[in-house]
């Protein structure tokens, strides 16, 4: 049997993007397991106010992906390393 992969929680460096903590939700922002990172569903949270920006869909998508990039940088990874 191979060794168990280590599992740890990933938190965003910007606390305004920590929806799990700020909204008291039962998930971690991300989990690192071995060499993989799994992120919780991310939305168009404003990094300054911490609230969702419900504007045009294009801007929501841009903000969501910027937030995801921030999550991956916080974990020490980079956006170009996403597989899925």
């Amino acid at each position, binding site marked *: 049997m191979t060794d168990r992969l280590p599992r740890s929680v990933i938190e965003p460096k910007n606390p305004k993007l920590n929806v799990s903590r700020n909204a008291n939700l039962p998930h971690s922002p991300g989990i690192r397991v*071995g*060499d*993989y990172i799994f992120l919780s569903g991310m939305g168009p949270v404003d990094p300054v106010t911490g609230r969702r920006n419900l504007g045009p869909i294009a801007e929501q998508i841009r903000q969501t992906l910027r937030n995801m990039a921030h999550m991956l940088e916080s974990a020490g*990874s980079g956006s*170009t*390393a996403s*597989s*899925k």
Partner: protein
Amino acid sequence: MTLFRQVIEPGNPAVDPSRKFNLPLSPAVRGGDFVFLSAMAAIDPATGERAHGTMAAETRQILTNMGALLEAVGSSLANVVKVNVLIYSMLEYENMNAVYREFFPTDPPARTVCGVKLIGGHKVEIECVALA
């Protein structure tokens, strides 16, 4: 140390919807021990055109294309570990399931099926994770 990550080009470009439909996705990406496939809809592998049909026909076309894509990247349907099946209505579950079982004769992958709104007029999309 960064884990190995590589975009994989399918052997048959016709089944690559990112080129045909100008979509921002890779059909398959290798990440560590696994290959992650984008969800596939029924495409004619000769022309790359959408192949609309019955649930059974679309399921068969997708899984045929998926098998070919996995083999082109050095994997196979037998190495698939998890499948997510998205169907336009759960009422057609059995029509999908009856064809699906032909493609995974033994030790089938883990699977989740749910009913969702699909685009492109398709009845079903299937994505998977396989061992590289």
